[in-house]
């Protein structure tokens, strides 16, 4: 059986044209790290520049998500980046029909995009 992280990684690479997608194994779960395609493909504005190292948190639509879980993931990623918490992770939510939807989850209070 294919794991949640694998399905989301496949979706990222083949549907959303990400490159260099790798597993990042944390204590509680596996997250993904990769580079999104050039910003022209993605409907974000100039204020949200995606780096070439975006973290994607694979989630099942049926699973329970708490603040503690999210906080823990930011903390564990920070441990791998000299203690610097990433400013966001991208939640990749998988439905049973294979749909994956992506949501930015910013650490703290973020300003909305200007567009």
């Amino acid at each position, binding site marked *: 059986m294919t794991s949640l992280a694998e399905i989301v990684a496949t*979706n990222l690479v083949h549907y959303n044209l990400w490159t260099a997608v790798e597993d990042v194994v944390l204590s509680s779960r596996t997250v993904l790290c990769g580079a999104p395609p050039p910003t022209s493909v993605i409907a974000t504005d100039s204020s949200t520049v995606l780096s070439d190292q975006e973290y994607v948190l694979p989630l099942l639509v049926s699973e329970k998500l708490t603040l503690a879980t999210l906080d823990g993931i930011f903390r564990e990623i920070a441990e791998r980046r000299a203690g610097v918490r990433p400013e966001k992770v991208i939640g990749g939510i998988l439905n049973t029909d294979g749909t*994956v939807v992506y949501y930015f*989850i910013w650490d703290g*209070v*973020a300003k909305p995009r200007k567009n």
Partner: protein
Amino acid sequence: MPAKCVPISLLNNTPLVFDLSHVKQLRELGVCGVLGGTLPTAPQQNVFLGLPLQLMVEDAMWLLEQKHAYLVPGRRLYDCLAATLLRQDILAIQAAKQEMTDEKTRERQEASRKFKIKVVELNTLKISKSELCNRIKQLEAEYLGEFKTEDLDEIIQDNSAFYFNNYQSFAESFNTPEMQHSLYLQLLANRGTDLVSSYQIYRHLRDQGYYLAPGLRFGGKFVAYPGDPLRYHAHLIVDSVQNYAESDIGMMSLVTNGRLATGVKKCWVIGGTKNAENKAKGEAGDLKTVESNATEQDVVCFSVEWAGFG
């Protein structure tokens, strides 16, 4: 308490403000509230609403914590108390007032007598006319300053702790720690234990300069504006969870709220406090509990928006 403190009327456990100058004062503090008063003759019209201003419970809690306001029972209590006065009560009050008036009158006569003596003394000195005027003015301030106002009632009222000439003095008499505590419990009475985390998020955003308003129109607890709502669009739709470790944010709620927020050019903020749970157990209605919760670093929040792909 400074006179600038705003009285918040508590009617049916709902915090309301009835005075326009107080409404202005609160707005300058970043508390906007919602106008809710309509016309008795046309209660159906709900487009142009006026006083009173209804506040959120969190608004009231914040104003109380910052010592910008105090709670007052509704005016109805004052009217009821006034209605239950017996004839002898009124006579007793009048007698007490008469006594105070007499005493003040005596004090004033005495002060005025001393003032006149001083003025006569001044007259014997050889000084210029303008100098004389100045000296008289000084003396007047010294001796008669307290009695400048013609209305003795006004002077007496300041010294009176026993009865209330008007609603304002009645309201102010509730500004004592004991009364405030019991009114505070009333304020919280209609709300569950979620209030603790909800208030923490409210204060967290207030501290960052956001103006908060009720969030129903965007499906959240609050909407947050980066300044006065008359000048800015809201930036955030705010929700809170009760328990940092246990409460499910809900994947569907993340998607629906995140998508709606992005659709209206906002972010969805979900927050909570690390130790809200044990504090909630320590009775959410306890003024001391909520106030000692001022540990800002306990607030954890995340902002969600649609990624723009997938």
